[in-house]
Every structure is written in C-alpha cells, then in structure tokens.
C-alpha cells in the first residue's frame, strides 16, 4: 500500500470542527509544514490537543481554533508563547487545561478504546474545578476518590518524523518520540510528514527498526517534506531556529500581528516558505540545542 500524499491532500481530509492532535513538544519536532498548510486553508473551528508551541500559537492567532486541550504552551527557551497568551487573555478560545501526564492518559484511553483512565493527578487543584467535563469518581476497590481522565479521541493526528517509507513505517531517530506514538494510536487518521523518504529495506537493520514507535497500520498518510519541522527542531537532523522564533515572537508586538509574520514567511507553498527562510541547506545546518 502506498500512503504517500501531499500536504494539500492531507488538509483536504480534515474538516471544520475536527479534533486534531499535534505531535512534538514545545519547539521540538512539530509537523510545522502541515500546520502551515492548515494556515493556507479555510479550515476552522478546530479542537487542538497538543504539548503546545508555535503550532498552537499560529493556529489560534489565525482564528482556526475553537478549543484547546493543553497542559502548557511554550517555546522553551522563550518560556511564554505570545499568540497563545493573546488568545487566552482575550478569551477567544475555549480551553481544557490539564496536567502533562493527564494528556498522556487521555491519549492512551483513546488508543485502548477505554472511556477513561483513573488517576490521582489533578485532585485538589483547579484542573478538577475548571473542567466540568472531567469527573471525579469513587473507586470500587478503595475509599478514595479518583480523577476519571476521559479518552482524548482524535479525528486526526499530525506528526513529523525523521524518516518514513511509503507504507507508513515511521522512524523518530531523535532522543525522544515524546507522546507521538500515542497521538498516532489515539487518532482515526494519522498523517506523518517526514524529512527523508526511505525504502522499506532501510528498516531491515534492527538498529533502525528499533526507532519505529508505532506500527504502520496506525499511519494513514506519509508526506515527504525535508525540513518540514522548521522552525522547530528535528534532532539529530537540525535544531530549532532561534532567530526565526525571535522574529515570530516580536511580530506579536507589531500592529499587523501574525498576519505580518505570515506575509513575510508563509508563501503559497512549502517551497515558497523554505525560500523565505533561507532554503533547506540553511535549515539542515541549524545547530542542535544544548540542554
């Protein structure tokens, strides 16, 4: 089965009002080329589930987001995400604010077909008072109460991987797959952009296959987009683009806001975008971050 498609074909499979999971973590290995394709589309009223960074900020500022399920939105080295803050402070998005680990449990529940997973996480905090949809329940086995973290069922997930083959075997070669395997399993459809498209034989080396974190049946579509995580990192291929993020953050203080940033960089296609940020060689030469 050949699952290759274009970013435009991915977005054509998304609909207004869908719940969409976005892989990666903060400024790390986000499927930004697919996010940009949504920015070029007329999709709207999305519910996003994300360990958020500029993916959330951009989509919120562009008016694509109805509701956000989040534990944080941050660019790490720039702790506060400016457009997320504007969206929250203006009350323009609904939110379901949860703990980082609760998000993992919600994705696992969805992946496993469970209505919820019990946890003590959230008890005693505003997670349980500000979220009427998160129930606290009695246990059949002890006298304590527990948070019933509901399944976070996703209509679609968007993920960026280092490598994939045409059948949807995806490799994350960086040090952390984050929760991307759970985003893939929690979604009806998972679309993966990849820096490199490889032959299936590539995975015959067990050391390479060891870095495949979900089975190909959980991958619906593969889009070959070298540099597709820019300006986020795709360790070990490239780091995050610090000057670009600084320009993005600065744009939030300009009158034109995100539109000014988009006018400068987005372009009509990913090729336009990459030309506007210096090309694939420049992206691939961005130094890896030191933590």
């Amino acid at each position, binding site marked *: 089965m050949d699952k290759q498609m274009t970013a435009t074909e991915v977005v054509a499979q998304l609909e207004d009002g869908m719940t969409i999971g976005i892989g990666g973590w903060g400024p790390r290995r986000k499927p930004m080329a697919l996010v940009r394709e949504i920015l070029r589309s007329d999709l709207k009223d999305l519910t996003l589930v994300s360990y958020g960074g500029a993916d959330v900020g951009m989509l919120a500022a562009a008016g694509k987001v109805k509701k956000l399920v989040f534990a944080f939105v941050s660019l790490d080295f720039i702790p506060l995400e400016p457009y997320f803050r504007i969206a929250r402070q203006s009350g323009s998005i609904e939110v379901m604010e949860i703990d980082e680990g609760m998000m993992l449990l919600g994705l696992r529940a969805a992946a496993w077909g469970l209505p919820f997973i019990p946890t003590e996480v959230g*008890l005693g*905090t505003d997670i349980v008072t500000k979220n009427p949809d998160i129930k606290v329940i009695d246990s059949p086995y002890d006298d304590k109460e527990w948070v019933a973290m509901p399944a976070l069922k996703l209509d679609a997930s968007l993920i960026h991987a280092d490598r994939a083959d045409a059948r949807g075997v995806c490799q994350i070669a960086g040090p*952390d797959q984050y929760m991307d395997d759970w985003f893939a399993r929690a979604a009806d459809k998972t679309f993966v952009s990849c820096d490199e498209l490889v032959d299936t034989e590539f995975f015959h080396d067990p050391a390479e296959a060891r870095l495949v974190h979900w089975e190909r049946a959980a991958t619906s579509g593969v889009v070959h987009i070298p540099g597709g995580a820019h300006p986020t990192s795709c360790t070990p291929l490239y780091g995050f683009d610090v000057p670009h993020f600084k320009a993005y953050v600065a744009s939030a203080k300009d009158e034109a806001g995100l539109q000014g940033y988009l006018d400068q960089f987005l372009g009509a296609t990913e090729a336009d975008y990459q030309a506007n940020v210096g090309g694939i060689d420049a992206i691939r030469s961005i130094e890896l971050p030191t933590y």
Partner: protein
Amino acid sequence: MTAATDYTLAELCIVAASQAFENDGEVLATGIGVIPRLAASLAMKTTNPDLMMTDSEAWMLSEPNPLGKRPAEFVPATESWMGFSRIFDNVWSGKRHAMLGPTQIDRYGQSNTSALGGTYDAPKVMMLGARGFPGNSISHPNSFFVPSHNTRVFMDGECDFVSSIGYNPERLPKGHSLDDIDIRLVITDLCVMDFGGPDHQIRLVSLHPGVTVDQVQENTAYPVHVDEDVPTTAAPTQAQLDVIAALDPHNQRAAQIKDNPPGDRG
C-alpha cells in the same frame, strides 16, 4: 570545612537549596531553572551521590552535566533513556523530588503557573499552563525556589489558579490526609522556609545573612510562623563553591537574582 567569606546570594541559595535533596535517598532530583538545577547537581556531587538526574532532554546521567554550551569533546555520563513518557512512570512511582519556581504560592502551599488575574476564561496574564504541577504535587515531594520574595508571589488569599495541591483542607480529596502532601523547602532570596508550622503553616527555617524576620514577614502576605531562635542560613564552603563553579562554567547563576548581590547583606 570553613565557610567562605566571598560568595554571592545565588551561591548561598544553591547551597541552601541543595539541602532539600540531602536525605532523599535514591530518587530523581529535578531542578527546573538554573539555581534549582545547580542545587540538585551539587547535592548529587556532594551530600547524596545516590540521586538520579536527567540531562533535561531525554537521558538519565550518572554525573550531572555542566550548564550551557559544552566543549565538542564532552561526553555526557548517560546511564539510561528517560524520554517524557517514561518520566511519568517515575513521577507516579513517587521516586522523584522536584524543585520548581511557580509565580504564586499561597498560605496553603498551593502554587500557580497558569492564569493570573481577570477571569479564568480571559485571564489578565496567561503564563505557561498547569504543566506537570498537578501530578508532581500529589505524587512526590516538591520544593520551591523564588528569586524575588515579595507579596505578589506569597500573595493574599488563594492562588488565582491552583496548579498544585497544597495543605488546604477545603480542597483535600476524599480518602486523603493533609500528611499525604509533601512540600519540602521554600528557598527565596531572603530566607529558607517550610510548611512545618502548626497545621502546616509556613515556617521560617533560616534567614540569609543580613536579612531580618520583619523583612520576611513584610514581603509575605500571610503570617509566617517564627520559632524563637532562627538560625542564619549557612554560608557555602570553598569546596561547595568550587563544585558549583565547575557545574556552571558560564556563570549563568550570576543572572538569576536581580543585580547578583553578595550573599551577606549585613
């Protein structure tokens, strides 16, 4: 070991904060931010070599990494993988002690990292979000570092958004006891505190050199329990300062407290 005479307030705080990890045994010490990370690293290098530590990315280390850019030939002392999903396996096992810097800490030891002021639907100031604070606070011990001790941080009333559970009887979950909650040390630029006062009231543990009890109380919007004899926070030893300097070769610690004051302000 004799105390050094020439040290900064940041270094005093690192040494004071490292004591939080001294008797932890074999747990993951997570210090978020320069001073907490150096405090955990100092403890691992000196008082508690059994501590576990990550590289703040995805690996466990048997030796803490120095902060900032490291030479090309540097080889981290990796001992296992520790990606984010596995962190939660550790958090929920309780074998961890985190030291973090929330924006608000109320009289109950509840903290806020998310929404400030306004309404929850449209806060006046939005910060990071709840992050891992809810899970940390109910799963394992936690300490706090506050670089600027004032009444905006140690504020009147309850936190605008409660990210982490504290000693508030009104919010205590069914079947739990306040003693299940384990807030350890609160290290600030003025003093060290804990929640060991009557009924888990915040309590002064030690005053940094040159700081008075009145200064601490004036900068805390709720009553601080003060025992009769409050010791002075111990000055770093030269050996501790040497370890800190090796862990922080770019002197990032100098940028953590406003104007990088000396440790003794007497």
